[in-house]
């Protein structure tokens, strides 16, 4: 993981580092990790411990990346909670029930996510309805469609699918306890890092989040950008659905709801606070890791599992409280320049 941190801080002076919101999330991660290391002991510190929380981090992290970008642009996507089961159901249905080739099943599953994302994006950009409400409506509709079609076609709410060995090894395998989804997650981190911090799209997203009107006036294709972001979140949620089918070899109609708020929490702990035009991929990455350590550490520490909610809540509050300070520091530094 250290290489990831290295990427983010490359070429940044110490003063700039202290001003970055990621610094807060890094400190949060270290504090939480040490806390659970003390309680969890050597098993938590060892490879099994790392793979344990990284496996959790990978799934929620894949969704947290686009959700974070959407939040930077000032939008929400609640529908991810229904896309995960919808995509896994589509994949299992085609691959398991109709015996389609794995690649067709996977592409269809991902296509479900892209389509729902497109619908979200169109509804958000073509109407004045806030994205929170649009995506709640779409979430209910997709949940209903998934259940209705699963029962109609298969007569059951769960469909099993045994993927061929190659597909399984690419999408549903464990390497020494580490899920391959971790590699997908890290790959996406690189893609999103490029999109937000290197390519021109990143500045557009920050601009849209800062002030949509002036962004549009500046010639930024705000509608297309917003639609693209919703499609990205649909795609990533669908990818998690597909990875789950390959891992657990069955798809369920229910489930996925936990991703809605969990992904937002990862993003917030990582320092993206929807205050318009602030946040970074490294922050989201750190936020996700912190969230996952709390989530898994609790079982190693032998504490009542519900205490994880209290710790997560405290972390969120800490992020909320420190936000203004970091923002003030960042803006004053920017003003000096």
């Amino acid at each position, binding site marked *: 993981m250290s290489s990831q941190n290295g990427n983010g801080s490359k070429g940044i002076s110490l003063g700039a580092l202290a001003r970055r919101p990621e610094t807060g999330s890094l400190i949060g991660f270290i504090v939480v990790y040490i806390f659970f290391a003390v309680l969890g002991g050597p098993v938590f510190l060892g490879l099994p411990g790392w793979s344990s929380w990284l*496996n959790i981090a990978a799934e929620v992290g894949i969704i947290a990346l686009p959700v974070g970008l959407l939040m930077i642009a000032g939008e929400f996507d609640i529908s991810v909670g229904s896309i995960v089961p919808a995509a896994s159901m589509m994949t299992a249905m085609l691959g398991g029930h109709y015996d389609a080739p794995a690649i067709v099943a996977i592409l269809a599953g991902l296509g479900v996510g892209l389509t729902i994302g497109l619908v979200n994006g169109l509804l958000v950009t073509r109407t004045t309805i806030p994205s929170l409400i649009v995506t709640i409506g779409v979430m209910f509709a997709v949940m209903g469609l*998934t259940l209705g079609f699963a029962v109609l076609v298969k007569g*059951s709410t*769960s469909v*099993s699918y045994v993927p061929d060995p190659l597909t399984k090894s690419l999408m549903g395998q464990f390497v020494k*306890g580490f899920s391959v989804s971790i590699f997908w997650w890290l790959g996406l981190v690189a893609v999103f890092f490029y999109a937000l911090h290197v390519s021109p799209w990143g500045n557009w997203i920050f601009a849209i989040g800062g002030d949509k009107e002036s962004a549009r006036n500046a010639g930024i294709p705000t509608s297309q950008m917003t639609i693209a972001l919703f499609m990205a979140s649909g795609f990533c949620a669908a990818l998690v659905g597909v990875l789950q089918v390959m891992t657990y070899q069955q798809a369920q109609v229910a489930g996925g709801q*936990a991703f809605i708020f969990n992904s937002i929490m990862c993003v917030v702990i990582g320092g993206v606070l929807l205050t318009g035009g602030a946040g970074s991929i490294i922050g989201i990455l750190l936020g996700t890791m912190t969230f996952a350590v709390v989530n898994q550490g609790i079982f*190693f520490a032998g504490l009542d599992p519900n205490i994880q*909610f209290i710790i997560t809540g405290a972390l969120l509050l800490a992020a909320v409280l420190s936000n203004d300070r970091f923002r003030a520091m960042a803006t004053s530094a920017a003003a000096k320049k």
Partner: protein
Amino acid sequence: MTMMKTLMIATTTALMATSAMAADIFVVGGKPDDPFWSRVKMGAEDAGKVAEAQGGSVTWLGPQNYDNLGPDAAELIRQAIDQGADAIVGPNWVPEAMDSAFEAVVAAGIPLVIYNAGGIEAADRLGALNYVGAVDYKSGYAGGEYLAKAGHTNGACVNTLPGAANIEAFCSGFNDGLAENGGTGSVLQLPATAFGDSTAVAQAVRAHLLQNPDITAMFAIGDQDSNATISGIQQAGKTGSVHVCGMNFNDSILANIKAGTQACAIDQQGYQQGFFAVSILNNHVMYGTTIPTREILTGPGVIDASNVDLVIAGVEAGAR
């Protein structure tokens, strides 16, 4: 005595109902997207085909989610009364919250069958015609006994729905099944949001096993949880040394049993629960018949490598 009473109620309601000559039966159950409950629903609807041919109907009422299980189910029972049910089927998940609603059913002279949860005690207490279902405690006990007799005596029950009386009963049954066959059991409590989240369950199981290396037996309260538990065991590198029994099953669970990754599945035959509860009530309303056998048990049946092939055909029909 209660027998007599129910029979009397039965005859009077039957006489009242015959004039209508069609039974509108309301079935209160789990969410329709819950795999187990979708099979119960299918059983109820298949039995309902007879009712429909006679001009009656079967209506399924399920909660949107399990956040507010007891009150929501109690509400649905009262809703069935309001909708003019001729007969009602319902599970007694949370007695404190639901008993008064069931009492209202009986007080309104509507024939009632308790199914899935509560046992014959609940049916007797509430004045229901009968109980159809497994006994949750016995289901858990069967799992504990099976694993302990196979020599896996240190067990943990994975509870993903803390607070639901029937799930708590699975776990206490499992632990007693272990204890009375020379083992010890504990409960792995998951946070309340983990139900239905395979990754969360798998990782919790894995962490628990790594931290408690003596555990060799696990019990899962549902088929999805069984799959997740098996994955957790595999990720902990303990396939073959930790053995799983789980409630309910589907085609992937059967594949697990064939492949040897799962020791047994405890079958409570949800399809039968829905089918018999509705049939009993339909015949009762139409013809005044009763089933003198009280407590119609649909489980627990143990499915393991010895009988798994028989079960597969039923699964392909969506009924098992």
